């Protein structure tokens, strides 16, 4: 237990357990919250994020579903139409595609199609990203597909505190939220404060700086903070922003930082072509054109299928590649 700035004691816990506690709090608060997914009940999920919840809330609220992602999303839509707030777990990022139709054609559109009569307060939890030495389809970063879809909100947590509070905020939101959990950070430990401090759509300046703005989310926040630490030893001051919300983007926070630094590096694991970095570069160019000292630069995955795990270190952005990007925007 450590002291927080608010003066209360904050427990230190893993991100996985912080999400578990967030789900538990949401279920205690609202009896309409139900969890649905493969192996989430007796097993507690393959990452144990729902560990113990079926035992405490019963099989009607923590539902071990048949092994069919389209079926899970399709029935979750029906549950929402009946007044429930389903929280769906997709076991791994690469398994979401059978459910893609229901997410983009139904979940994202039903509120508009019904002229506001129907709400779709679903949360779709997706463990995402690489770095865990997994087999194919277990390491993908497919957030751009959903960020491109109007009607959805897309967020990603990067630390236990945010994970704990953002999952509760996502569940309370009347819009559907795709909730990306960086699976290689599930076991990172950190403090969980007693208040969320930020809204679900807010970005966070997690390290103030003056020379270069580094925009990151999910697993790349920790890597970017490490890069900032290393850069400081070389006399460079990086401002690291954790985007947290990928759709919508918190443009005011981003723009304020870029107008100060004039240089931007966007970091994500996803391939750069038409990834989130492309949208950020376009928006920043439009809003901060006269402040920019260099083009917005992207450090991301290569535009290839996620490689076999023996190659993922070469594929994934890391401290060195982030610093290389920083060198380029500074030396432009």
């Amino acid at each position, binding site marked *: 237990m450590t002291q927080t700035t608010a003066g209360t004691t904050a427990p230190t816990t893993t991100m996985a357990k912080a999400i578990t506690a967030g789900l538990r709090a949401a279920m205690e608060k609202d009896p309409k919250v139900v969890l649905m997914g493969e192996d989430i009940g007796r097993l507690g999920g393959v990452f144990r994020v729902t560990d113990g919840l079926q035992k405490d809330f019963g099989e009607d609220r923590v539902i071990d579903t048949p092994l*069919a992602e*389209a079926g899970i999303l*399709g029935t979750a839509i029906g549950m929402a139409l*009946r007044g429930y707030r389903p929280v769906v777990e997709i076991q791994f990022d690469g398994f979401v595609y059978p459910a893609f139709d229901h997410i983009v*054609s139904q979940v994202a559109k039903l509120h508009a*199609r019904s002229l506001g*009569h129907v709400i779709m307060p679903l949360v779709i939890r997706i463990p995402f990203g690489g770095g865990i030495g997994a087999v194919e389809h277990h390491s993908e970063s497919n957030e751009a597909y959903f960020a491109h879809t109007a009607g959805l909100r897309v967020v990603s947590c990067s630390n236990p505190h945010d994970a704990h509070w953002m999952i509760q905020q996502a569940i309370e939101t009347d819009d559907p939220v795709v909730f990306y959990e960086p699976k290689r950070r599930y076991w990172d430990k950190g403090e969980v404060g007693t208040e969320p401090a930020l809204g679900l759509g807010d970005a966070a300046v997690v390290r103030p700086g003056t020379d270069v703005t580094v925009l990151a989310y999910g697993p790349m926040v920790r890597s970017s903070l490490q890069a900032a630490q290393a850069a400081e030893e070389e006399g460079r001051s990086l401002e690291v922003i954790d985007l947290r919300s990928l759709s919508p983007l918190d443009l005011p926070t981003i723009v304020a930082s870029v107008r100060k630094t004039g240089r931007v590096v966007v970091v994500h694991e996803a391939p750069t072509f038409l990834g989130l970095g492309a949208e950020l570069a376009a928006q920043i160019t439009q809003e901060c054109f006269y402040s920019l000292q260099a083009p917005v630069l992207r450090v991301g995955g290569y535009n290839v299928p996620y490689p076999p795990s023996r190659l993922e270190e070469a594929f994934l952005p890391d401290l060195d590649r982030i610093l290389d990007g920083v060198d380029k925007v500074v030396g432009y």
Partner: protein
Amino acid sequence: MSDNDVALASPAGVDHHESRATSPDHTASHRPPADGGPEMVQVLTPEGQRVPNPDLDPILDELSDEALRVFYRDLVLVRRFDAEATALQRQGELGLWASLLGQEAAQVGSGRALAPQDFAFPTYREHGVAWCRGVDPVNLLGMFRGVNHGGWDPKAHNFHLYTIIIGAQTLHATGYAMGVQRDGAVGTGDPTRDTAVIAYFGDGATSQGDVSESLVFAGVNNSPVVFFCQNNQWAISEPNEKQTRVPLYQRASGFGLPGIRVDGNDVLAVYAVTRRALDSARAGEGPSFVEAFTYRMGAHTTSDDPTRYRVSAEVEVWKHRDPIERLKVWLMHEGKADRAFLDAVAAEADALGASVRERCLAMPDPDGTAMFDHVYAEPHPVMERERAEFLAYEAGFADGGN
């Protein structure tokens, strides 16, 4: 072996697949009109003869003469509305229309079997079910006129929005039924509380994975949902034998559900079979599958041209199985309706057609900013920004005129 031989060997009325697979020169003209086979439940023949049915007669005997006349009125009015919508499309007032011609009995029979608290999940062709649920027919025209994507309140009539993605709604229905179970609204014995869900879909949809998955989910959860398949023989241009090797109702057994084939052009049989399935679902006895064997008399939609893939002789056969004519003959023969009643319904149908036409033409186009209105339920910065940009752009035209 000729196609006719195969058809005779397949009393289920589908499954000419063997001959089709081995007859590369097969054309639509060789295809015999399907009939439902001996396992098809029918209580009113195409000639208007009432066939006793010990299982279903207790349900049908409860129907008053007035209720039977309501069936007739529904069938006629729904057909008239549908004809008016087709005409409106031909005159350029609708961009598209999906006609239900020929399927009136399947929709009215099942729609009238629903209790007020039950919930229906339609495709885009369930105009007759919408009618039974009290949805204003003009609301159904909105999406085909292009002024909205549906837009009625599903909760107001317990009738979900039309779903165009084939088969998707069967999963939504199943999930809704899972919610009903969690609300304790099944198997209580309270007829105003126990709730069933009905999922409408067509023969083509049975090939979709969503339909199979919904049968899995409903089966393992024992959910109160009735899968109501209108087998109208044609999925646009593809006949039954392009979709299935077995009669569709037999699919159910593989999922652990009872399945039944009913004459979809016999409103009494459809009502009784669906009523029994819904009662069973409400009582907590689980899901079931009803195949209503019917025929799409018109095109798939107004954009379709069925002369390219089916012959008029097949349509002629089905004209003799018309759902309205047989009920009229029986009602008149039994003295349950008279000429004055038929005339009154005909007059009412004409009035409905005129009213639908008038109100369709009066439908306003939405404001341009309406496209930003309900994308999100909660405030969203992109919606706010783009709405402002749109308004500013539009205002530029107004200023330019000054």
